[in-house]
């Protein structure tokens, strides 16, 4: 019970720290929302990518990439300011810190999915269906991957370098997810690289969940398994590096 109380205290503090930073709200909510509206109204009808049933889940995956930046920034700033040293002296354990950092971002990830799906549904009511709820819960998988990546990078980088390093992940999600151009327009080699990396799989998982294919296993196994593998590896590394840094401190 005491451990739960400590984790809850950490979550409460982290959520406040993130939500009180206007930049984090702008990047995690306002900018992707603006992109969802802009890309739909400018490009829909010209290419299938910009139909809301593809665009909304793609935007969710893109917005979730910012979770890497803000979870990483929070940890890097805590490390740099000696705040984490203070926490190390408290009775909390390293596993509680990691859970505190991770769970503080899940409500934000969930809010992102709800907002972008709902706005998409208001613009194009034809996308409202039960599968939206399936995609909503599926979105927690890429969210976990991006949060884990943030914890890992925040443990490795300092407050000056984390922005640059995390922006590689955001750029990767934008450029390598096949959100803005049809896969057919790309070469075979590029597509193979995209299939191996997590970014396209994150967007594809949500898009497939959103479209609600009947043959769940056939349609989902590839993006789901690849993303789960990345998530497990990234979180394992994040825990190892965070604990190592804790001992070094």
């Amino acid at each position, binding site marked *: 019970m*005491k451990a739960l*109380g*400590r984790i*809850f*205290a*950490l979550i*409460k*503090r982290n959520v*406040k*720290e993130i939500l*009180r*930073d206007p930049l984090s709200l702008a990047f995690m909510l306002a900018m992707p929302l603006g992109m969802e509206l802009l890309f739909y109204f400018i490009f829909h009808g010209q290419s299938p990518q910009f139909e809301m049933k593809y665009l909304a889940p793609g935007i969710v995956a893109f917005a979730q990439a910012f979770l890497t930046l803000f979870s990483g920034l929070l940890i890097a*700033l805590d490390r740099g*300011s*000696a*705040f984490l*040293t*203070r*926490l*190390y*002296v*408290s*009775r*909390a354990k390293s596993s509680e810190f990691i859970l505190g950092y991770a769970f503080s971002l899940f409500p934000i990830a969930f809010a992102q999915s709800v907002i972008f799906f709902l706005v998409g549904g208001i613009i194009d009511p034809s996308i409202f269906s039960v599968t939206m709820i399936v995609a909503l819960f599926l979105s927690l998988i890429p969210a976990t991957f991006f949060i884990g990546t943030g914890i890992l990078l925040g443990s490795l980088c300092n407050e000056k370098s984390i922005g640059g390093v995390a922006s590689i992940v955001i750029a990767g999600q934008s450029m390598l997810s096949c959100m803005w151009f049809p896969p057919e327009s790309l070469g075979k080699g590029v597509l193979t690289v995209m299939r191996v990396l997590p970014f396209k799989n994150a967007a594809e998982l949500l898009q497939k969940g959103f479209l609600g294919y009947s043959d769940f296993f056939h349609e989902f196994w590839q993006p789901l398994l690849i993303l789960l593998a990345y998530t497990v590896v990234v979180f394992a590394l994040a825990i190892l590096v965070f604990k190592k840094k804790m*001992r*070094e*401190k």
Partner: protein
Amino acid sequence: MNAIEIKNLRKEYKDVVAVKDLSLDIKEGEIFSLLGVNGAGKTTTIKMLSGLTCPTSGDAFVYGKSVVKDPDGVKELIDVSMQETAVARKLTVAENIEFYAALNGMTKQETEEVKQKCYDVFGLREVAGKMASKLSGGWQRKVSIALALVTRPKVLFLDEPTLGLDVLARRELWRTIAEMKGQMTIILTTHYMEEAEALSDRIGVMAGGKLLFVGTKEEMYAATGKQNVEDAFIEIVTGGKAL
């Protein structure tokens, strides 16, 4: 009664020996100052005593609990204010105290009591609703030290508590530390000689990872033939080859 007993404590980093076989007893309720120039080993000593880093060899006991074998037990008795300010930037002063109390498993009533005590001791009531990042460096340092009192530690480590503060803020913090005397054991590291002179019951002088002298300031004067802590410190550290 001894609050802390240090036995041959040593810390090595690759080819550097930061602390060389330190042995020392610190009495319950005293303010003990560790004096030394940069790189003397003061902060490393504090880090070992507070469980932030493991000693290479030797051990230290806080009220009988080993920092090597029972670091979690030691954490229940101590708190630390490191030389860098350590507050949650986007929380108010009150929220910082509440967060740190919750992290240490305090009830709502205990949290309220400790919050009022922090306000009284450090004069924080007027800034309680302000976000920590909006406060001046002096106020942030006060909040940072106040947080170390939240857990009501039996032993408080203050690493360079007045570093970077202006003269008025420094004097005010001295007064606060002096008022805490007797309520807990305080181990203070500093390289401000007048700070050690004004606050300490006993002074330890470190240089190159070694403890060169331990005693009251009067004993320090007697051992060196000097009339103030600064001159006596220079005499001890330079081995009589005063600058």
